[in-house]
């Protein structure tokens, strides 16, 4: 689905990402790598296939678009790696396969105490926000605020709730209001928040290979 924000041409992808053709830039938000490991450490047995699954999803995304740069709008990880965690090395192995790709990270609330690993992963940290062609790129905005800058963000994990008769469905969604777009969480092992439509946001749900406006 095509979208024009502040005269920048963007493409919303069903892979839960945004493609910025003019800059050959892919944008994702809220990947939450290592979340499964945090759970296991706290006694909740989540299988580690989760991490592999996220990396596979990134692979698929990168394979479909000739991106020069991947921009992560915050929450690349769920928590800083702890001693003995294997997942940061698995991510490193994954990273080495994309030597040509620049990865930049807008810091999210989960990306704490990461600097050593960011270096190893060759991920450039570009602070809390920055402007690009008139668009503000930031991790989180106050979704209840009436006026928002033209731009893109993540953090809220928007979701849409569909209902027809007895069938119910909850899908990740992009949320759009005026000139601001909130991305769905890229990480599969993350929850969603519905109700943004009640605050005046239009929800664009990711339904399989399509994107559907639902409100």
């Amino acid at each position, binding site marked *: 689905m095509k979208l024009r924000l502040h005269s920048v041409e963007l493409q919303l992808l069903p892979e839960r990402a945004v493609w910025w053709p003019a800059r050959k830039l892919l944008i994702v938000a809220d990947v939450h790598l290592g979340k499964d490991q945090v759970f296991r450490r706290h006694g909740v047995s989540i299988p580690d296939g989760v991490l592999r699954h996220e990396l596979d999803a990134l692979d698929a995304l990168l394979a479909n678009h000739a991106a020069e740069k991947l921009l992560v709008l915050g929450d690349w990880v769920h928590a800083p790696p702890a001693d003995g965690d294997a997942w940061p090395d698995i991510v490193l192995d994954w990273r080495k396969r994309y030597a040509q790709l620049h990865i930049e990270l807008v810091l999210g609330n989960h990306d704490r105490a990461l600097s050593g690993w960011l270096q190893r992963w060759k991920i450039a940290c570009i602070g809390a926000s920055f402007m690009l062609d008139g668009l503000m790129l930031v991790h989180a905005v106050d979704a209840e605020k009436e006026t928002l800058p033209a731009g893109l963000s993540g953090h809220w994990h928007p979701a849409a709730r569909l209902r027809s008769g007895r*069938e119910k469905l909850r899908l990740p969604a992009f949320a759009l209001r005026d000139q601001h777009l909130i991305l769905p969480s890229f990480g599969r092992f993350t929850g969603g928040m519905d109700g943004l439509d009640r605050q005046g946001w239009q929800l664009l749900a990711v339904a399989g290979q399509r994107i559907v406006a639902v409100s």
Partner: protein
Amino acid sequence: MLDFQRQAWQAYAEGQSGLIHAPTGSGKTLAAWGGAVNELIAQDSSGGGLSMLWITPLRALAADTCRALNRPLEGLRMPDAVALRTGDTSAYRRKKLLEQPPPALVTTPESLSLMLSYADGSKRMSRLKAVFIDEWHELMSSKRGVLLQLSLARLRALNPGLKVWGLSATIGNLDDALAGLLTADEQDVDRPGLCIQGRIDRPIEIDTLLPDSVERFPLAGRMGLPQLRAVVDRIEQSDSTLVFTNTRNQAENWFGAIQSVSTEPETIALHHGSIDRELRDLAEQGLAGGRLKCVVATSSLDLGVDFSPVDQVIQIGSPKGIARLIQRAGRAGHQPGGCARIVCVPTHALEIIELAAVRNRLWQGKVEAREPVRLALDVLAQHLVTIALGGGFEPDRMFDEVRTSPAFSDLSRQQWQWTLDFITRGGPALEAYPNFHKVERVDGRMRVTDRRIGMLHRLNIGTITADGALQVRFVKGAALGQVEERFITRLRPGERFIFAGRSLELVRVRDMTAYVRKASSKKATVPSWAGGRMPLSTLLADGMLALFDEYVAGCAHPTPESESIAPLIALQQRASAMPGRGHLLIEQLQSRDGAHWFVYPFAGRLAHEGLAALLAFRISRLQPVTFSITVNDYGIELLSAKAIELEAADWRDVLTIDHLTDDIEHSLDAANMAKYRFRDIARVAGMVQQGFPGRGKPVRHLQASSGLIFDVLKQHDPDHLLLEQARREVLESQLELGRIRAALERAAEQRLMIRRPERLTPLAFPLWADRLRSQLSSEDWQTRVDRMLGQLETAAGVSSR
């Protein structure tokens, strides 16, 4: 002293265990407690340590029980020998109880489990003489009962001579109730356990509030408000009245209605499980003290010890089961020897027959059975972590110990190993759960070593899931009670709803709390709470069929109900036929809505849901068709656009018992139902951290919905036994597969009576009117989703890329 009390004391003195069953208010408590009192006096000088535990299912009952148990000890220089420990007990008081244990403690299954989770818990429980379990009939068919059985197994291991006594109301399977209290191998050896019967139930007199004319009485609807005037008259004639309803929604509606026509609205109060404890207490005390004339209640008042009897009990709608009727009628005047009177108010015409069946079953002295829960691995996992936390366990000995509890007597080595793996390494495949950390082996014992894990576990002990419950609270402070998240999330701030009998306006939702303010207008929606409606019990459903046979044969015992309903039965017979035990009635007719098939298996609403989906699925396999499905306690409606012609032979195929489980799972979205069911399981097994109303969300970084976890497990560990358990629970509890099977088995023996009436019959009408449809078609899930999306797109008028 009564005979059965003496008998119980004697048995206790001999060191026996057993079950005492008697109606509420007949001296059951004293029968059980007398032996303990004697033992407490005898050991008074030896002193020290906790020797008696009294388990009660409801926190709310604990304080009353504590008082009642202290009473016989007061005159014996043992004041305050019985103390209280529940989730409501303050941390300070709990610490005090640990340091200076009282001789006896009143507590809940969850609190007992929590006590076992402390390192010195076992030591403090090692001088126990006896455990008493109140309202065992309530616990035995739930996972709470399973948790309790596991704790009992632990206590028995610590105290080999432990006596266990259960108290139960009358139920249909007392043998199972007794067996549930004993160890799995104790049942047939030297200490078989005693079943002591107290005074038999008081005779119950049912007074049905019959409408003037059944022809003008509604055939459908479940509020019953047309009878409001008659009910209010009864209330005003009496000093104290309890009005029982079957759902909280019904209670809110009736409360509002009674208040609006009553001359003294301030003397009427509301009491249901979602209302804050303090408000409920006020209602109970008000009724006892004479300040209130009437309390409208749900099953929230089914239990209770010290609740003073009222002059009159009114039951709105069918009680749906005999046991429930007996329990509720017991709230009326507790004078020994007298009879209990209950006024039943049918909400629609067919319920009059239901009430007639209730009356018949009462005469025959039949009561429903309660099915015990078996092999709940989620509860086992929780218990094992509890014990690992409370000093640890040695696996082989623990296996034997767990198998002494009746719920796990059939536990296989493999299931045991899986559960052990689940808590020690995450799952059977070690490599799938790197760095999993919960229970560890230290010097041969399984222990929890991480303090944070221990803390989290203790927060989540228990099996009752305050499922997505939000606290309802005034912005200015006072708490009103709890409402389900599902309901609140559909409301926007500013919208109104009725709760606790008040019209409220939602202000905001924050931290598991819905803040509200008083609304000026009365126009508002009433929340519906999940799981409110009980299906008609098998006993009653069969009772109705028996009655029909008697009506048709003309040998029905004349009752006010049967006389009132006679015109309706005549009408049904003229237009079609009456259902009966020997035949299955099936009706086919055409209306403006389309082509209808009605089937009347009388298997209860839950079983009908599964059965209807099954029939629709099987018919649609014969010829492609999409049905609208409606069910009630009596039957099923299948509605389609074009007529589907089925002869008796086709119906035989459709009603076959072959491939039942497979077909059911195909016909319903069983996968999705299991996902829903998994919520409770995940919580019990410690995979989801529970949020506590009013206490904010726990540990943010560990938030994940059970649905997400379900998907992850399904994808990466499909053989997970908790997924299997979710599937089993959907079939057994949610869809009542047992009843579906029984209905099909019966149908195989029955004659099929296919009738083609010209218009809706009295039996068909409620189904038609009550239509809550669900679509079932032969299309697959993906097509259905696509269709749904297509509709939404059209509706939204926006195109996709």
